[in-house]
């Protein structure tokens, strides 16, 4: 084996790039099962709550080219205790608007969609209950919030400390419901061979999907194979199984051939989850020097009637700043809405908009620079768990960012800078996201000629995992990239967790490193360092969390600096430039890492200024359910983004020293924009998004 330079850290081009650019990388919808494919289209409920009183598929059934119409009356029974909205077509009860109430299978997608209009459905409907408010009397405390966090945390005497504080902030922040809109809509193609199911599918982890299919169709794990080599974005919406996988498999069984189901863009707004709206009250107490004495963060959010998804909105508040007295709470309303789900950095994203806006308000109230205020409240250890940090470089991020951005000498007063008709301001906010690791198995085989095959059920949802995992493997095996063939995105491969919670590379990468080490040790010990002529196969992996996770607090950090321009005539907002600096541990690939930071940060700017799923309080649906009306930031909204990182491996976190970077970029970003907006205009907008309409509202002109 030759010694080569380390590949980890290099800006290696995506190895899947050429195939994607040429259009030869086959996504789920584009697979060729070797037989004519039937297409599925769904009839969706037009009411939020009630039951189907009449369902007449006869007109659709009679249409030429229609193969079957599945309804709650004739759909195959699903077994097991499927959660949430997975028991598709199992009952006439309706729990949310957009629920699938019938499915048409036809020769072409056009015929299937046309036949949808031929299915007559009538409902006995109740008035929808879809509006979240903090004074609902049915708010409840869930047992746990997402990712296993405690619902509440109470330390010390928050109310007493607030009453005694020299300076306080007490403000309520709101974020709207938002919808994930990856470019690739969810798509599932199902084919049965006897009692074995193959599903080509867009998801964030094939094994996750397998377990629900096994449950629902009462199969053995070996009877289901989910194949997902390429996925066109996900952001959390493809983390769990949704009705699309169940429906495709069900329909394929009924019509006896391959069936594909691809959601329409409009269906992305009802069938695959959303981010809950939040109402967050923050109270901060500080001494005159700006040292926090109390932090209180009370969250109200929603979940659906058929599932409990409790977004962990206040959990970042448990780690970001020091304060002796602290309280975080989460309360939920169960509404007649589709099941909410993960959307990039669930919890941190809405929660840090509130906390980091409040910190800015506190800086203003104290007359202390907001960067300095954060530095003064840097905790020496995890302020709630009272364990040391595995590594924490937030202060360096703030200082480096301030330097790169040109923060020094900023006039803290609002509405002081103009350029033409633009009001100009700058703002700052911190970023943080937990560093975790999940169990992952791995197999590495080598043949007599030194070709390595690395197999693990990891996922590349557009992040670059094909490339980064290959780099890690090559380094761990001590060979060049071209000696390694990576296989991911297939449930036949060794089991691993999905691409979620920024755990992908931490988990899969550790599994690969440990397995490679084992292989090299065996080669050394059993074969004297020579490759055996008939090769060698080693199974290995990683058991789960880092052994230091119990004794240390592990997080990625970052700091955002944003310049905002607000048109004084129209209230239109632009972000001409921004700087973000990250403490993400080891950076495996400079190119794909930059894309993750940049993408996350842009999504945060988009959240600050644009994204909002507008619900009709009486009719109960998301009205702006397409990309013309659900606005996502365009290139023209955002100018220069200066992205950089500190090179500080976290030796305790995992075998590679990385912290996971898929989500850190979005956290805090919206607050940095809102803080800059305040600095530009003197207007504090506490409910996102910051639209032109709200500019006039704050000016008292509406």
């Amino acid at each position, binding site marked *: 084996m030759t010694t080569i330079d380390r590949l980890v850290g290099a800006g290696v081009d995506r190895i899947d790039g050429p195939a994607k650019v040429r259009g030869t990388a086959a996504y789920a919808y584009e697979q060729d099962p070797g037989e004519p494919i039937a297409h599925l289209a769904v009839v969706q409920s037009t009411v939020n709550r009630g039951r189907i009183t009449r369902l007449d598929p006869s007109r659709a059934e009679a249409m030429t080219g229609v193969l079957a119409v599945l309804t709650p009356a004739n759909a195959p029974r699903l077994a097991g205790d499927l959660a949430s909205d997975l028991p598709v077509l199992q009952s006439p009860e309706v729990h949310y608007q957009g629920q699938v109430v019938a499915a048409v299978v036809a020769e072409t997608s056009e015929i299937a969609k046309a036949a949808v209009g031929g299915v007559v459905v009538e409902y006995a409907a109740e008035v929808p209950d879809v509006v979240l408010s903090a004074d609902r009397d049915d708010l409840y405390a869930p047992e746990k919030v997402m990712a296993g966090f405690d619902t509440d945390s109470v330390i010390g005497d928050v109310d007493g400390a607030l009453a005694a504080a020299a300076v306080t902030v007490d403000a309520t922040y709101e974020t709207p419901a938002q919808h994930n809109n990856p470019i690739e809509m969810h798509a599932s193609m199902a084919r049965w061979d006897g009692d074995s199911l193959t599903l080509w599918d867009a998801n964030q982890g094939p094994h996750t999907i397998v377990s629900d299919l096994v449950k629902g169709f009462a199969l053995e794990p070996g009877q289901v194979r989910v194949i997902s080599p390429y996925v066109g974005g996900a952001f959390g919406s493809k983390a769990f199984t949704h009705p699309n996988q169940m429906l495709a498999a069900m329909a394929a069984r009924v019509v006896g051939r391959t069936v594909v189901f691809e959601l329409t863009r409009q269906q992305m707004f009802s069938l695959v989850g959303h981010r809950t709206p939040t109402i967050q009250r923050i109270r901060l107490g500080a001494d005159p020097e700006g040292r926090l004495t109390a932090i209180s963060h009370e969250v109200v959010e929603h979940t659906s009637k058929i599932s409990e998804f409790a977004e962990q909105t206040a959990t970042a508040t448990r780690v970001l700043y020091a304060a002796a007295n602290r309280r975080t709470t989460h309360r939920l309303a169960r509404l007649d809405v589709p099941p909410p789900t993960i959307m990039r950095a669930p919890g941190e994203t809405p929660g840090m908009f509130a906390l980091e806006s409040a910190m800015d308000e506190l800086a203003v109230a104290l007359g202390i620079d907001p960067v300095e205020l954060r530095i003064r409240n840097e905790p020496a250890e995890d302020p709630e768990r009272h364990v040391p940090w595995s590594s924490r470089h937030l202060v360096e991020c703030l200082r480096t960012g301030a330097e790169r951005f040109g923060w020094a000498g900023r006039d803290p007063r609002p509405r002081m800078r103009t350029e033409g*008709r633009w009001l100009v301001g700058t703002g700052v906010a911190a970023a943080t996201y937990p560093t975790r690791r999940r169990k992952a198995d791995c197999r590495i085989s080598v043949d007599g000629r030194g070709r390595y095959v690395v197999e693990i059920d990891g996922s590349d949802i557009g992040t670059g995992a094909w490339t980064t995992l290959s780099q890690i493997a090559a380094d761990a095996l001590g060979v060049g990239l071209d000696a390694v063939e990576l296989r991911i995105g297939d449930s036949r491969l060794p089991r691993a967790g999905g691409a979620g919670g920024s755990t992908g590379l931490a988990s899969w990468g550790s599994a690969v490193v440990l397995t490679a080490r084992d292989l090299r040790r065996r080669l050394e010990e059993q074969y004297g360092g020579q490759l055996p002529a008939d090769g060698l196969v080693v199974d290995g992996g990683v058991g789960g969390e880092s052994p230091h996770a119990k004794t240390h607090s592990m997080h990625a950090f970052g700091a955002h600096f944003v310049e905002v321009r607000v048109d004084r005539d129209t209230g239109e907002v632009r972000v001409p430039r921004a700087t973000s600096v990250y403490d993400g541990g080891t950076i495996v690939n400079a190119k794909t890492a930059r894309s993750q930071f940049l993408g996350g940060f842009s999504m945060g700017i988009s959240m600050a200024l644009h994204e909002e799923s507008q619900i*009709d309080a009486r009719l109960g649906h998301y009205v702006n359910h397409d990309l*013309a009306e659900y606005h996502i930031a*365009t290139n023209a909204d955002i100018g220069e983004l200066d992205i950089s990182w500190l090179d500080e491996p976290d030796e305790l976190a995992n075998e590679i020293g990385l912290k996971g970077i898929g989500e850190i970029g979005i956290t805090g970003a919206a607050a940095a924009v809102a803080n800059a907006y305040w600095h530009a205009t003197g207007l504090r907008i506490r409910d996102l998004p910051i*639209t*032109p309409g709200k500019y006039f509202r704050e000016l008292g002109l*509406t």
Partner: protein
Amino acid sequence: MREFRYERADDVDGAVALLAADPDGAFLGGGTNLVDLMKLGVATPDLLVDVRQLTSVEVTGLPDGGLRIGAAVPNADLAADRRVRERFPVLAQALLSGASGQLRNRATTGGNLLQRTRCGYFTDVTKPCNKRAPGSGCGALEGVHRNHAILGQTLDGPGACVATHPSDMAVALVALDAVVQVVGPDGERGIPIRELHRLPDDDPSRDTTLRHGELITAVDVPVLGFASRYRKARERASFAFALVSVAAALRVEDGVVADVRLALGGVAHAPWRATAAEAALRGQPATEEAFGAAADAELAAATPLRDNGFKVPLARNLVVRSLLDLVEVAR
């Protein structure tokens, strides 16, 4: 989507005859609006007559210095035309502020004028909408209507509708007093563009005064001779419909407003010619104060909805700013 036939006629008369014979047929331009609405089940024609090859793709000069724009001229080409950019910057700017590069390449002049409202209840066949399904009610009136009309709406009764007309180009053409040339089953006529789009009154199902089977063949823009501009406020920098837009043209002599054209987009069911503001301005000093008073005169009639009151001060600011910018240009 309903099944439909697709036809190409040999000439304009043939196309008109095809449609005259089919009450459920429609002309097809670039299809960027019509085909979307067909996919959503909002438009259900049984026949599409493709008219892109039938009408002109040329912009030609008129004797008076004005321009004749063929109905099939793509939005992108029109915006790029040197004569348009020099003589009617308001029109070029309006076009470029709309949609995206890809859409503008595809969209035609005729189709752009006749694009339908973006109201989210109109585009969702499961929701009430008097425009799409007369008598079903207006979902937007008490619903999500941040980007709906503040002027000239029908606020109650079976004709209730608070939708806006989405075209940017049409707002500029209204300010320019364009004339829309049509050929129909009863022959040719020229429609002053202000008489093309209608307010909902008691029948919001009709966007325009065109009769079934009438084909737009060209749009004539008479000579203007003074400075003009288009300004559009929207919720993101690109690829968003107007919250409010202003098409303005101004001629100032000795500090006094000698001529003025003002049209507003995003505020009504039709591009809104601000006649009250124009009347208030003629002969007045070209000052910020006078511009504000003129905008107020126009907006006095505004009846904003629960969530779109911001459009009133926004429209005021845009009118004032556009006119001040034009004074600046003239200097």
